[in-house]
């Protein structure tokens, strides 16, 4: 039972940590993210985007700023991305109908809303997307309003559908402060191998300015952003190591106890002519079998947990988690190591047990 729980923990941690460790599919190595170096929610001047676009190897550049709605007084809970019109051209994980994308480019008041949010809030095409934001509008209020022209979907991480995308220029013109600033730049590069050199070039260029940048591939930056909350990977590794040693201690204790309880049986088997090595191997095989059963059940438990977690997330984490083959393979390798380490001492005890000593316990 304890082994099962330990492997359930292993499977769950490995599977659910994917959103923190950047192993989510669809994060591109061909897209570079440029963001403020010291503050995840800081600002960069739009000129940084122009500089990035001018670099060799950069094919296209998209940038956006956040309009953070004030939740309680707004019709939406998510983020509004005030983006350059080519958002969907570069951020291909986000997908929208052509007419909606065209409307975003041609109509400054248009908004493309995430499908999940639209479903949750009952937003329809033609509706007004009205909300209060922390940014002040030119009329002195914090009220913002856009026309819904379509919906977008994402290939993974359905939580990203809890947002809306609007036209950057219209937002920038309308707001009273922070004009000409953006929160993030995404650059599509011609060759992923150039990611490091381009990243270094951008970061070196702004290193000593008030707008120091941090640049890297999207997959790497996702991990770094998660790390700003906490070093998730380190925490995961620490938990997994704890799990591993707990499994080891639990199984070593179980195996030892099992052998101690069967001292007489082992003695009897030796009496009947079973050789020391045969009993050693049988103890090792038993440990491996038990651990593999626990591994299998733990991973099966993880598989059953995935839809539960996705359900509990209210669709935000839909289709995000997969029990990958490498996790399954890793689990069985871990099981094999645990079985070997845990059973080696009890198996050695069985190997060296003298029959007369075993039967004396009778």
């Amino acid at each position, binding site marked *: 039972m304890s082994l099962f729980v330990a492997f359930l923990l292993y499977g769950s941690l490995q599977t659910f940590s994917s959103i923190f460790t950047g192993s989510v599919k669809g994060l591109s190595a061909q897209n570079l993210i440029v963001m403020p170096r010291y503050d995840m929610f800081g600002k960069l001047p739009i000129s940084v985007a122009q500089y990035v676009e001018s670099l060799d190897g950069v094919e296209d550049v998209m940038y956006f700023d956040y309009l953070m709605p004030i939740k309680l007084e707004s019709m939406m809970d998510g983020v509004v991305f005030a983006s350059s019109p080519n958002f969907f051209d570069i951020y291909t994980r986000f997908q929208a109908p052509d007419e909606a994308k065209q409307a975003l480019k041609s109509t400054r008041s248009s908004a493309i809303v995430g499908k999940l949010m639209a479903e949750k809030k009952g937003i329809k095409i033609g509706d007004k997307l009205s909300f209060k934001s922390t940014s002040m509008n030119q009329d002195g209020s914090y009220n913002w309003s856009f026309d819904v022209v379509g919906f977008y979907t994402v290939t993974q991480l359905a939580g990203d559908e809890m947002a809306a995308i609007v036209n950057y220029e219209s937002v920038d013109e309308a707001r009273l402060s922070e004009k000409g600033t953006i929160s993030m730049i995404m650059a599509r590069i011609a060759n992923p191998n150039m990611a490091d050199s381009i990243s270094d070039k951008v970061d070196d260029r702004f290193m000593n300015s008030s707008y120091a940048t941090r640049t890297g591939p999207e997959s790497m930056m996702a991990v770094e952003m998660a790390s700003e909350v906490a070093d998730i990977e380190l925490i995961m590794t620490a938990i997994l190591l704890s799990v591993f040693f707990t499994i080891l201690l639990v199984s070593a204790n179980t195996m030892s106890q099992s052998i101690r309880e069967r001292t*007489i*049986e082992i*003695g*009897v*088997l*030796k*009496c*009947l*002519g*079973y*050789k*020391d090595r045969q009993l050693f191997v049988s103890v090792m095989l038993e440990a491996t079998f038990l651990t593999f059963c626990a591994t299998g059940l733990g991973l099966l438990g993880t598989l059953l947990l995935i839809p539960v977690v996705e359900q509990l997330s209210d669709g935000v984490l839909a289709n995000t988690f997969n029990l990958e083959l490498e996790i399954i393979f890793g689990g069985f390798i871990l099981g094999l190591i645990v079985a070997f380490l845990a059973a080696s001492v009890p198996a050695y005890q069985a190997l060296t047990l*003298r*029959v*007369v000593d075993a*039967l004396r316990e*009778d």
Partner: protein
Amino acid sequence: MINLIEVKEVSKTYNRGGETLVVLDGLSLEVPKGDFLALMGPSGSGKSTLLNLISGLDSPTSGSIIANGKHLEKMKSSALSDWRAGNVGFVFQFYNLLPVLNAKKNVELPLLLTNLSALKRKEHVATALNLVGLADRGDHKPSELSGGQQQRVAIARALVSDPDILVCDEPTGDLDRESATEILNLIQILNRDHGKTILMVTHDPVAAEFSKRTLYLDKGKLTY
């Protein structure tokens, strides 16, 4: 008569806390084929140690033990295991059946070391269980059997590989008189009708009466 077992000048000592404990002291003994020998004596007299030496479970400190033509004291652990599997059947006071296995599987255990096919093993198990009168209890686990029945299963296990020697260490020590008598009758039949050579350690004089001869041990020596 041919001696199946010859024990010559055998001593067995143990070191306990720097002190040498003499358990068997230059003991000699001959057991002819087909004998039914009861060994009696007070606790600590060396009965079980002698039984362990003769059955190849332990090695003497000095002296020699020749059983079925083999010098047991010269054999290594692995060779002794093979020898035991082919020549000795064990019956213990507390039966020592594997609780998770049913009677058939318990009886089959010694046969798993042989090259017999599953079908042949099944036949041998059925014969052994039939011999001890438990043909209809093969699918029962030890916990579902009485003490006497468990000892019968243990005897079937000891017999199933058809060994020449049957070693019984207090075989009736955990049984009531009625069951003990049944078991002793069974052991007697195995000796008389099936030619098994039987060595039995017992504290019970009534049990010893079932044997052909009784030897007494005291302080590691035979006192007759």
